[in-house]
């Protein structure tokens, strides 16, 4: 068991965005978190990644409690994430974004930077190598030195996944990685996610609305509604669950 969440609750000015949620993420699996809009999925990610402080509850990563930790500390422990609205360093170039993603894996600090020590050289070489590796993995090698603002939506989404990937995390949280993309680009991202899962063995936890894609990709699903878990199981079980069908009535269809 990689990640465990116990009785997690988050209140915003009286409204419970996430209410008494308990779940587990198993190592090496692809887990999908689904639910209607406003169900609390992104808030849940925010709590796990440390961006939000839980009102109640605990979060454990590989047995160690990480509740209330700062985001950068949790990221260094091995949880990487992407954001619903594509978050990148848009004043910088593609390679810069990736290099920043790898920063946590370099050890050099102020003095090694100032004096250009051997450690600095090694950090630089390792970073360059890793950036090149990820660039070809996500298929953006040609756009390496382009500024992020010149990339298409799909390319930006791929880059943000690359930035999450480059830090060699134990688990990646993908928040609507295909949000706003057409079918062709969606399939591209889906195969990228599968590639990540297969080659690197990284645990993937994703939020998605596109049901067909989720059913195809996910090994296990958790359904949230109004901040609580209403169902859990394999895609097959979920699509036949009456509570789930009712929650989605009037929203997306499962077929």
């Amino acid at each position, binding site marked *: 068991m990689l990640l465990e969440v116990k009785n997690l609750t988050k209140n915003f000015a009286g409204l419970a965005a996430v209410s008494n949620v308990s779940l587990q993420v198993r190592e090496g699996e692809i887990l999908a978190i689904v639910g209607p809009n406003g169900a609390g999925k992104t808030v849940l990610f925010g709590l796990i990644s440390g961006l939000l402080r839980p009102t109640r509850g605990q979060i454990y990563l590989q047995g160690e409690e990480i509740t209330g930790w700062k985001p950068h500390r949790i990221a260094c422990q091995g949880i990487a994430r992407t954001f619903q609205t594509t*978050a990148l360093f848009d004043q910088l170039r593609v390679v810069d974004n990736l290099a920043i993603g790898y920063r946590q894996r370099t050890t*050099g600090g102020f003095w090694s930077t100032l004096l*250009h020590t051997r450690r600095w050289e090694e950090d630089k070489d390792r*970073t360059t190598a890793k950036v090149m590796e990820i660039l070809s993995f996500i298929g953006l090698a040609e756009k390496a030195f382009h500024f992020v603002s010149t990339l298409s939506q799909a390319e930006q989404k791929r880059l943000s996944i690359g930035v999450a990937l480059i830090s060699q995390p134990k688990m990646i949280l993908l928040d609507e990685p295909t949000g706003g993309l057409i079918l062709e680009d969606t399939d591209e991202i889906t195969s990228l996610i599968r590639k990540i899962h297969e080659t690197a063995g990284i645990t993937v936890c994703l939020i998605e609305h596109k049901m067909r894609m989720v059913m195809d990709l996910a090994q296990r699903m958790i359904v949230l509604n109004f901040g609580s878990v209403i169902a859990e199981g394999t895609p097959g079980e979920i699509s036949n669950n009456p509570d789930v069908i009712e929650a989605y009535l009037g929203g997306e269809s499962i077929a």
Partner: protein
Amino acid sequence: MTWIKFLREKWFYALLLILALLLPLLITNRYHFQIVIMGCLFSIAALSLNLILGYTGQASMAHAGFFGIGAYGVALLTKEGMSFWLALPLSSLLAALVGFLIGLPTLRARGSYFAISTMCFGVIISIVAGNWIELTGGYNGVVGIPLPNPIFLPGVGDLGFQTQAAQYYLVLAFLLLTLLIMHRLVYSLMGLGFMAIRNNEVLAGSVGINTFAGKILSFVVANFFAGLAGGIYASLIGTISPATAALEQTFGWLIFVLLGGIATLTGPIVGAFVIPVIMEYLQFLTEYRLIIFGVLLIVVIIYFPRGLMGGFTTLQQRVKDLYAQRRGEKRAAGG
């Protein structure tokens, strides 16, 4: 990198360096020379402000305050008999330390809060400098600050700093040192880290960068150099007062950085030289100059936020891209 390759790529900067070294032979007017010396000093101040403001994206309005700490430190220590060469690093370290202590509470808060807090802190320094009469002499300031002690060079003898040329080489040396250090910090993973904090602090945290540590480091280093510039200023000018640490100074450097080109290494230097020169030429306009600068500040930040050198690099990049695109098209058409 071999010397020849280095020269070919950086010939422009090599030329500038030679010009800078030969400057005392070219300038005869004492007044002009003084402007150049001040330009070098303010370049150090502007470069260091650029580190925290331009690269890390935190608006420190206390920069003149730390300049003041360096200035008063050197002034008081050297008047008590300490060698300039010991007083200077001590005062700079003091500025850095105070920066650390101030940074701890203020950098945890949101951007606007930091700007206001540092502005207030800068004013505190001015008020303290003006009222702690036993230590600082109050609003009359400190006069009679000795010049830097002569350095002994084997074979040459004692090198004093009475001449403008010697003073110029002193500030030039420190400017080059500052430039080198800034270059190393900025063109590195650490520098990318700073820019990440500036661009999207939340995202930077999510990818594992300790943004608070980064901001503190950037702030402390910036203040060290502010103090350094202040210390040299005190010794060369000979008199300082609370006005040395005034908010107006910070605003001046802000203009240098902004107009010259934020987040570039050449921009602040260009600004620190060009703008005072323009100010000199516009002397006849007296106070109206400042109104022009206020207007310029607004116009530049809205329409030319990347300043002179920033816009220049964008232009360079566009030309390069256009060139590469043309070549790519030719190849596609041919192949």
